[in-house]
């Protein structure tokens, strides 16, 4: 491999690379993100390699494993270029047919195409699928075009061009000016303008300064940063290097969750390759800029996503936060000026430098520019990663891209911002998604988790869920957070067990406000949000739990009972056989009855009851009807005999 010693050499290398690549040569690509991995994309990959060889196509067809395509619901995803034919839910068994039909004969395999569930229409191209069509994929689009383990792939699509531009055509001040003009706000959640942060770090006196990538993506239900790091690590790295140049840093860290092994692997490969090409190390591209990067794996602590905790963790200590100011820009890692940004923020930087701040600000709302990646999950038809311009409505994301709620259920709320965020009810579905609008309705943008909830989701249970999560993650250093969360959780647990008392809601509000105001770091400061916000919009659900001992969504175990409707039961034995606590009495041709004393409320009977009968019901807030007498249960058999 060549060591690139100047911007001109980089450009020449890129040109040589492109001249060797025929854009019309057939290329079969396979999504190799973690979600597709879980649906056995590795077996598909092995089958592709085997089949290409078997059918004698090794010289004519390229095979590329790419980063996450985002449509995780339908993985593993195979896209065939140059036509861009997209096949979904591909298994190893489909590969011989794809190879002989599509790669050899240029024929489309119909049964693997996307079928629109409402119109029944098929989509051949990825860009025709509504999930993709309604997005504006700028950052994520690179994921599908490159092999994250190949720096040449990244260079071929213009990689490190922005770095060269910054190093040779711009002063550090100009770089900061551009990022400020772009009004790039931190994608990690708080939305603080990155340019202002950079400027503060640049202005602080100090020989040694640090830049850090925060890839400690801890919000449950959010995996944007992982997919970027796995799918396009060089873009994050390039952004980091531009930032380092602007701030005057020569050492960087990537703090990455150890739960993301593939991201660690791809990043480590990227670092080695960048070094080999002279894009990392001393005198980068022959300039005076020296920079090195170390990878630090996080060991499983949610609080380490908070910047001061992250710094402590990098120093090899327990990740406990400290009060700010001083901000990391003044006193950060080992007391040195430090700048921390989230993965997605860094990945935006090369785009801004390449295309200029004006192009970046042409997308978005007044206060929030550019695009944002969300992980759209929960009770939604098209689970996956979604990139949209700032300012689209929640309704468009959930219905146009997400395809609505499965099973004809009713939408209840969408949760954004993870454990620090809030649930947004139906009446606000038309608000524009940006940093400021979401705050107005009591939620936050957060890092980009978007969890859709339907009528079967209990909001008291959701609040309890988040507090249970936070109780385990609070570091325990300051008491408002440690004790406040614990007490709120206790009350919420009692409410969900049917032991709630009058005044509990007010007590929760009071505790929540104190925890919010008195906690040391953002974890405690935002911890009451899920509680306060669900009380604000779903107070009636809290009241039903407390006053009527009823869970309107039939979720809270202690408030519901399972009951078999004797009119509907066909004595099929399904539930009786599967019941783990042997609580169901009955037999062949004998109506089944649940012994309420033995029932552990696992819900298995409800699940296995054939949908043509739907005899098992959930009851809440009212007594279970008494079992019908033994004699009456046999009627079914007589009727069946007729």
């Amino acid at each position, binding site marked *: 491999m060549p060591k690139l010693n100047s911007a001109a050499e980089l450009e020449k290398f890129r040109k040589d690379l492109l001249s060797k690549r025929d854009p019309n040569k057939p290329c079969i690509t396979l999504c190799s993100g973690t979600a597709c991995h879980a649906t056995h994309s590795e077996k598909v990959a092995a089958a592709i390699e085997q089949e290409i060889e078997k059918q004698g196509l090794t010289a004519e067809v390229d095979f590329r494993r790419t980063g996450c395509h985002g449509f995780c619901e339908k993985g593993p995803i195979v896209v065939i270029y140059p036509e861009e034919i997209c096949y979904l839910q591909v298994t190893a068994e489909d590969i011989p047919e794809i190879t002989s039909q599509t790669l050899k004969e240029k024929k489309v395999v119909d049964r693997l195409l996307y079928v629109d569930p409402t119109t029944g229409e098929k989509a051949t191209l990825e860009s025709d699928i509504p999930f993709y069509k309604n997005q504006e994929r700028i950052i994520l689009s690179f994921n599908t075009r490159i092999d994250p383990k190949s720096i040449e792939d990244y260079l071929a699509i213009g990689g490190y061009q922005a770095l060269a531009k910054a190093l040779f055509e711009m002063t550090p001040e100009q770089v900061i000016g551009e990022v400020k003009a772009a009004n790039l706000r931190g994608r990690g959640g708080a939305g603080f303008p990155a340019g202002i942060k950079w400027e503060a770090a640049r202005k602080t006196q100090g020989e040694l300064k640090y830049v850090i990538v925060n890839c400690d993506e801890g919000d449950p239900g959010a*995996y944007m940063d992982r*997919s970027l790091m796995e799918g396009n690590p060089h873009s994050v790295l390039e952004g980091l290097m531009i930032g380092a140049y602007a701030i005057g840093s020569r050492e960087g860290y990537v703090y990455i969750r150890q739960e993301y092994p593939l991201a660690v692997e791809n990043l480590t490969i990227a670092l080695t390759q960048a070094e080999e090409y002279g894009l990392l190390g001393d005198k980068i591209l022959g300039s005076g800029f020296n920079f090195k990067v170390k990878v630090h794996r996080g*060991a499983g602590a949610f609080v380490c996503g908070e910047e001061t905790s992250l710094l402590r963790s990098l120093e090899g200590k327990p990740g406990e936060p400290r009060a700010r100011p001083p901000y990391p820009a003044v006193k950060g890692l080992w007391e040195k000026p430090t700048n921390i940004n989230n993965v997605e923020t860094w990945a935006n930087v090369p785009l801004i430098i390449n295309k200029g701040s004006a192009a970046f600000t042409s997308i978005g709302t007044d206060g929030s520019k550019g695009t944002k990646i969300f992980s759209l*999950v929960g009770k939604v038809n098209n689970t996956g990663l979604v990139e949209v311009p700032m300012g689209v409505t929640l309704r468009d994301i959930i219905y146009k891209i997400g395809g609505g709620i499965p099973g004809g259920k009713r939408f209840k709320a969408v949760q954004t911002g993870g454990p620090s965020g809030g649930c947004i009810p139906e009446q606000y579905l038309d608000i524009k998604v940006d940093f400021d609008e979401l705050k107005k309705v009591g939620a936050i943008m957060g890092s980009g988790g978007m969890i859709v909830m339907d009528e079967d989701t209990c909001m008291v249970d959701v609040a309890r*869920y988040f507090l249970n999560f936070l109780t385990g993650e609070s570091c325990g250093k300051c008491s408002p957070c440690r004790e406040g969360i614990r007490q709120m959780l206790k009350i919420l647990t009692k409410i969900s067990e049917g032991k709630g008392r009058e005044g509990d809601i007010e007590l929760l509000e009071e505790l929540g406000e104190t925890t919010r105001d008195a906690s040391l770091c953002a974890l405690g400061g935002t911890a009451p949000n899920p509680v306060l916000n669900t009380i604000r919009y779903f107070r009636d659900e809290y009241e039903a739990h407390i006053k009527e001992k009823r869970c309107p969504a039939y979720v809270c175990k202690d408030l519901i009972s399972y009951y078999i409707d004797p009119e509907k039961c066909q004595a099929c034995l399904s539930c009786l056989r599967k019941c783990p606590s042997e609580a169901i009495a009955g037999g062949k041709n004998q109506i089944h009855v649940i012994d309420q004393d033995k029932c552990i409320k696992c819900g298995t009977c409800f699940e296995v009851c054939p949908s043509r009968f739907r005899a098992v019901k959930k009851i809440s807030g009212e007594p279970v009807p008494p079992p019908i007498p033994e004699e009456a249960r046999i009627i079914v058999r007589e009727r069946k005999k007729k």
Partner: protein
Amino acid sequence: MDKDKIDKIIEKYPSDPSSLIQILLEIQSENHWLPKEAIERVSEKLQVPLNRIQHIATFYKAFSLVPKGRHEIHVCVGTACHVRGAQRVLDRVQDLTGISPGETDLDMKFSLETVNCLGCCALGPVMVVDGEYHGKMAPAKSEEVLKAVE
């Protein structure tokens, strides 16, 4: 865990206290838990007091100070899995194995852990047994998965 293996891991990192978490992570992933002799060796080599290692090993969730069972079960309890019924899956798994999250059974067959999000939300609820992902779980289905394990 023998001394040579521990030393080899320690030598891979610069010998300063900031390497501590990285070294412990590697021992954990190699050995599935942090035995006493490993912690003592790390303390000696890096010149970090034992109580600080203890603090780190208990603060971060990735570490275990007790041995793990032959099969590791991870039930995802991320928000997306939660709204799709992960709690009922977890209840059933606890019932079947007789252990709570963080525990290992007496036969050393199963260790059970919950994880906050595996990022496979499309497959939720998700359960991982010995690294293999099982998606769209339901209580009854989790029973089948566990019964298929040795």
